[in-house]
């Protein structure tokens, strides 16, 4: 779908951007879903060729918002988008975070730009909101500002920074440990290492854990089979599947379904 840029502004740091686009698709994105963005116009350039996947950060009537970090060619090009520019977007794609049960204490664990899908999730939380907490692992206190929008929603935010410049020093997963209760349910998104540690943590504590995963994608719609990740032994046995597709079966998975050793 050809979409018009409403704004594209840097947020928190000069490598993080918030891109708001007009949205005329009938389907409204739900928390955890993503879109695939064409960063170049094929009539003028065939490179970069493939679309880039981004979680939906926020969505409202007639618009969606993406929060992204400039890491390479595609996101550099995106950062030059201006109000009124057109950009082709495919979506919403993938499965959403399962809606947490009322009784569950929701623990969100985000690392860096992995915070993106949690804003929309937080917004949809109702009564359970008071019990929800976001553990946010950032590199520095500057990056940590990315959690401000979620804090504003009334979610408790606990920051860890790698350099100790704000909140707890060290890995975000260390902070989570003390916090897990019996009826906790963990939702995590961030770097693979963090997700792996979170999955282990959840397993050890015996609580449910959903992770939003990344993988290289070509199509985003389940046909190229490019985004496959190894499924856990469990899935292999019960469903005779060796791989799961991040784009169509995920990006949100029960952490038990993934073979963490292979990542």
């Amino acid at each position: 779908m050809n979409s018009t840029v409403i704004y594209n502004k840097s947020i928190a740091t000069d490598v993080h951007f918030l891109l708001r686009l007009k949205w005329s698709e009938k389907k409204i994105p739900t928390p955890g879903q993503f879109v695939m963005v064409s960063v170049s116009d094929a009539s003028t350039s065939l490179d970069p060729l493939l679309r880039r996947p981004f979680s939906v950060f926020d969505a409202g009537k007639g618009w969606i918002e993406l929060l992204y970090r400039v890491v390479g060619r595609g996101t550099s090009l995106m950062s030059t988008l201006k109000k009124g520019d057109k950009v082709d977007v495919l979506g919403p794609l993938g499965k959403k975070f399962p809606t947490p049960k009322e009784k569950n204490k929701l623990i969100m664990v985000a690392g860096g730009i992995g915070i993106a899908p949690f804003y929309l999730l937080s917004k949809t939380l109702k009564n359970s909101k008071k019990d929800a907490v976001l553990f946010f692992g950032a590199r520095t206190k500057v990056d940590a500002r990315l959690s401000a929008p979620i804090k504003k929603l009334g979610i408790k935010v606990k920051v860890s920074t790698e350099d100790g410049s704000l909140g707890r020093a060290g890995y975000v997963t260390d902070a989570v440990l003390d916090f897990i209760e019996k009826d906790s349910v963990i939702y995590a998104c961030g770097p693979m290492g963090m997700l792996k540690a979170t999955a282990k943590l959840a397993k050890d504590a015996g609580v449910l854990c959903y992770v939003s995963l990344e993988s290289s994608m070509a199509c985003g719609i389940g046909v190229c089979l490019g985004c496959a990740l190894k499924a856990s032994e469990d899935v292999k046995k019960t469903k005779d599947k060796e791989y799961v597709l991040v784009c169509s079966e995920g990006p949100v998975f029960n952490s038990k379904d993934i073979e963490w050793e292979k990542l």
Partner: protein
Amino acid sequence: MGKVIKKSTKKTSTQLSVRLGTLELANPVITASGTFGYGLEFKAYMNIDNLGAIITKGLSLKPRKGNPGPRIVETPSGMINAIGLANIGVEAFINEKLPLLKKTKTKIIANIFGETVREYSELAKRLSDVEGVSALEINISCPNVKKGGMSFGTDPKEAARVVRAVRKATRLHVMTKLSPNVSDIKQMVRSVESAGTDSVSLINTIPAMAINAETKRPVLGNVMGGLSGPAIKPVALRMVYEAASVATVPLVGIGGITTAVDAIEFILAGASAVQIGTASFITPSASESVVSGLKEYVKKNGDIKKLIGALKV
């Protein structure tokens, strides 16, 4: 008025139709194996009835899981894939996909591959028994399997063995898909022709590799994969043109086609039809857009069949 319009649409539609020997297609646009799933996935994005034909993901006798990831990587104006021919297997295809798929008026072509000549002929037999499959495309050129695959695709004699076995096993139209990884594509064309293929499609992906300089590791789990997309179009065009200089059966051009103009280039070079691959990943309805573009073209310029091999050299 209504009638007049109908007439002109009819004219356009016969002017878009092409014939690959025994196989008649409403238009020359076919979706390439491995890039269009089993066809059904695209219903949400386009009308698959508008296509000339749909080619399935490569099918093997038994289901295959595929290669460890990462399976794809982007390259300048292209991508490398090392999916490893993951597929649900021929039985699941026949039982789960075909019943739904054959509801489309678009012709269905099953892409098949085996690790032995016998596997190819068994696949051909199995798919000839069922209704809804119009043709078989023999993939002798996939670079992503350890056994078979590539060696069939680069040795004219081995290729001919496979084609002969499939030819014997089926009354369906047999299309043979060639690998670009040969010095002399003409020799390959001659060889599969004499083995009885009804048409020849080319090219499959070009063996390729990507390296991550930081981690000092290959990017792909499988180390190597196949390059596709606009980057390879100039190579594909050349091979189709070379093949056309010797071919007596119809050719199907593949490689980096994203627009109707690209398709026309392949047709001018000698292809009777084209396949759209990687482009469907970028825009799921890319193949339908190519059909629309060709429709416009024939409205202005007349029958597409006049274009086949019409390059003025």
